[in-house]
Structures are given as structure tokens and as C-alpha cells.
């Protein structure tokens, strides 16, 4: 566990901090995520993806739950994450992060904003629509198109 912590704690903490904007809360989520992994290592299926990506998703979901003061929405065992690039090493993750930032930079501001509000603020599409004054359908389309754009960047 110590080895896994040393390898992935910076990712987990960075995601939690980005969502919560609060170091104490991020540390609590970090603790919780690794304790879950320790208690239930079988929740992650190594045949179906990268541990780093899985931890990032679990962390994001948990941090959003904390942010929105709600009970956990999803059992971690139900969270299967399929991601194309190999993200085992810090160098891999750093390259991937750079690529993602490039894709985000190439998106229109409203699309990037809708995607980030959904992902890092945990807003539902109707909340984003209310906030931006745009139709629900437009928000749905932007979020999906944003995610697909990220996928395509790693398929080429």
C-alpha cells in the first residue's frame, strides 16, 4: 500500500484539491480513497484499465459527493474505467495531462466551461443550463462532445 500511495497519492490529492479547493478536505478524501483500496483491493479490476485512471475517477466522484454534501453516489466496484493510454508512470501521466490541456485549449470557451462545471464542480446539466442560460440539449451535447474529443486525441 505504501508503494501504491507513493505512486498515486499526488494524482489523488491533485484531483481532490481541484474539486474541493480545500487542502484539509482533499487530505480527507485522499485518506478515504486509499483506505477503500486497502479494504477492498478487488474493487479494481486490473484487466480492465489503469489503476491511476480508476483512482482519479473514484477520487473525483468522492470529492464531488463531499462538495455537494451527499452520500456516495456509486459503489466503487461498479466503477469500471476504460482508458486507452498507459498511465502507469508519472512520465506517462504527465504526457497525457499535457495532451489533455492541449485539447481543452482547443475547445470553445462555452464547451470547456460546460465540461469543467460538470466534471470538477459536479453540476448537473440542468444546473449548468440555469447557470449559463443555455438550452439543456446544448449542454448535454457539449459535455458529450467534450469527452469524445478527449478520447479522439488519444486514438490518433
Amino acid at each position: 500500500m505504501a508503494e501504491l500511495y507513493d505512486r498515486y497519492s499526488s494524482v489523488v490529492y491533485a484531483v481532490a484539491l481541484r474539486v474541493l479547493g480545500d487542502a484539509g478536505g482533499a487530505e480527507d478524501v485522499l485518506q478515504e480513497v486509499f483506505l477503500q483500496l486497502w479494504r477492498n483491493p478487488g474493487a479494481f479490476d486490473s484487466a480492465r484499465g489503469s489503476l491511476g485512471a480508476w483512482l482519479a475517477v473514484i477520487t473525483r466522484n468522492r470529492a464531488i459527493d463531499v462538495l455537494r454534501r451527499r452520500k456516495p453516489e456509486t459503489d466503487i466496484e461498479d466503477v469500471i474505467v476504460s482508458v486507452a493510454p498507459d498511465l502507469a508512470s508519472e512520465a506517462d501521466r504527465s504526457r497525457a495531462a499535457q495532451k489533455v490541456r492541449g485539447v481543452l485549449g482547443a475547445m470553445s470557451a462555452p464547451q470547456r466551461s460546460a465540461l469543467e462545471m460538470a466534471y470538477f464542480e459536479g453540476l448537473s446539466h440542468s444546473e449548468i443550463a440555469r447557470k449559463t442560460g443555455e438550452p439543456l440539449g446544448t449542454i448535454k451535447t457539449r459535455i458529450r462532445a467534450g469527452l469524445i474529443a478527449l478520447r479522439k486525441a488519444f486514438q490518433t
Partner: protein
Amino acid sequence: MAGHEQFGEDLALYALNALEGEDRHKLEEHLASCTECRLELEQLRGDGALLALSTVGPRPPQRARKRLMDAIAAEVPTSRAKTAREMGRPRHSWWGWLGWAATAAVIVFALSLWKENVALKADFAALGSRASETARELEELRRVAAPILSNESQRVTLVALKTAPQPQGKAFYLRNRSSLVFVANNMPALPPQKAYELWLIPVQGAPIPAGVFKPDAHGSATVVNPPLPAGAEAKAFAITVENESGATTPTMPIVMMGAGE
């Protein structure tokens, strides 16, 4: 995804836990029977993971690591049921078509597996802890015993330059490991603030400090693996009386000395 386009946008929202109400229910019903959409959901979560992985920030504070390790050490084996209660809602019933009898059988089987798992985990943790403790002790023992037992050790007996009483010191020095064990007996007591200092007298160069020691009430003392330069070849060992803090050059006179046997 062919034929499932109507769920495409909802799947993206669902992957981000941002789908609510009736739309969420409908999609979950569909997911229960549609492998293609489940695979697409996994992909969309992966796309989201890329977004998460693009975040940069400071590393977690050092205390977080200790906090986690302390929590793990103190952890009582917990049940999956407890984890599920704390961490998640009940799993979606995509296999709800199974009859109650089958469900009950699975639960009984899972429970027995869980009990076995908890017991094994506890045994494994205890065994792991004992094994690492034993390994540490063994390594320490090997480290101390190596210069005494090794045929390659240089054995040096130190005797008082003056005759009676007969203090004696034995140095076991393993040059290729820079390991030294020194045992002394019948050493005369010293005034307060004074101590004996052992010196490695190299073939070339100045004497090298090899440990400061004070004999106990019976005149016995030991020095185990003092810091020494790598590979220093010993011509002899000597002992002087120095201040308690030790010295970098020996203060005359030499009270005991011996060359290799």
C-alpha cells in the same frame, strides 16, 4: 453504440454522475441489458479520467502518508458489507431477474467467502508483521556475527602494555565490510568525563577513531560496528584514554595495543 444513439448524451452525463431523475432510471434499466452501452459508459469514464489526470497541484503533505499508514495499522478487518454501507449505495440490480432462491444462495456463498477473506487477511497481516520483525532481527544478528564468525576476519588481541591486572581486548575486523566488533574485559575504571577510545592503526596514514567506550562495573565493554572508512587495512588496534566525546587523534599514552594474529 449503433442503435443506441438516443442514450449517447445521457451516457456521458451518467458517466459524470450528472444524470438525474427519470432519465437516470431509464438509462440504468437499459444498461442492465445492453453490453454495448456499458462498454461505452466505461469509455466515457475513461475520457473523464483523462480530464482528472490533467490536474496539477502540490503534493500531499507528509503527514497524510503517516496518517494513512497509522489508520491501516489500526484497522480492524472490516466487512464488505460495512464498506458498502459507508462508501456506496447498494449495487444496481442488473441481475434482478435471478430468483430469490438463487440470490440467497449467492449471499450465503459470498458470506462464507467474505469470512474466509477476513480471516486470511488478518492472518496474513500478522504473519507479515512477524516475518518482517524476524527478518530484521536476523539481519542485525548476521551483521554482528559476521566479523566474529568469518574466516576472513582479522583477529587481534589487545593486552595492557604494563602487566597486572590483565585487561584484555579482542577486535574482530572484517575489512571488506568495514565491520568491527570489539570486546574488552578487566578494563580499569576511568575518572568521570573520561572514556577509552579504540583506534584502528592503518598500514598507511594516521590512526582512525574506531569507537569510544566506557567499561561497566565489571570492567567489560563492547564496541559494535563503529563508523569506519571503507576497506581500511588494519596494521594494529590501540586504545587510549580520551574525553568522553572522543578525539580525532589519539592522546598519548597508548594503554593497550595489539597487531593481527
